């Protein structure tokens, strides 16, 4: 199973990764803010993630590390 790690404090909540995920597994938090005041990205169903790294490819801020 793939594992995603988020550098949450670097996330600006732009949502490009949310659109890039072919399975629609990512969403922006509705509950939390990071120190910058942005809504950081979250992985909703970790068990469905294939580790294709589409999200990390589109992330402008290198927030996401992908392991398989």
């Amino acid at each position: 199973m793939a594992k995603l790690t988020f550098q949450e404090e670097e996330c600006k909540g732009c949502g490009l990764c949310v659109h890039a995920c072919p399975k629609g597994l990512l969403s922006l938090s509705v509950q939390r803010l990071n120190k910058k005041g942005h809504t950081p990205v979250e992985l909703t169903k970790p068990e469905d993630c294939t580790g294709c790294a589409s999200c990390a490819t589109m992330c402008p801020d290198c927030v996401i590390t992908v392991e398989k």
Partner: protein
Amino acid sequence: MIVFEKPKALTDVPLHYCPGCTHGIIHRLVAQAIDNLGIEGRTIGIAPVGCAVMAYDYFACDMIEAAHGRAPAVATGVKRAMPESIVFSYQGDGDLASIGLCETVSTAARGENITVIFVNNAIYGMTGGQMAPTSLPGQVTQTSPYGRDVATQGYPIKICELLATLEAPAYLERVAVNNVKNVNRAKKAIEKAFRNQVEGKGFSLVEVVSACPTNWGMEPQQALDWVQDKMIPYYPLGVYRDKEV
């Protein structure tokens, strides 16, 4: 096994760019090229004036900040003085296609063995969204509130096509970073532009069609869709010069 992580040629300094700004993607692609070719110790980058002015904080290699538009001239000096170094300039459209057009064309015409990364987002970002030489016909900006009127403001400058009229450039390609497929193509193009320099092939320029969500007044994803729908039809992607072929 790590499939994707932040490249080592980027520092830990958080990028100051607006949310969804594609400068971050292009910085990463340049850093990945430096990592993949193993040239970090001898690479010298030239930062522009514009949004990317603080690129010297983000790249882990040596960096020089050039006067507005003069990055290719500074790069020429560094490369000639230190031929073993790998020299790249990273410039936006206001820098490369406007105030620095002379240096861009002259450096390309001389075929200097440097790599130029040209970020074309069709607007002046840092100064607040004024019309750039690359703004599309009809595009609304701070200084063209009724849309760019080609009768008075002329047509956009297509840098790849312009430089392709010269004999000397070794490699000219236009790519985009609006979706995963195009980012992967851009990654290959940028790496090739660096490899050309390592192999001594001559002047290589990669034009990256980019987005400016803040000054275009759009959501980040909406801006990437605008790149696909408006920018790419006007700035066709592809290879404009490749002396290998």
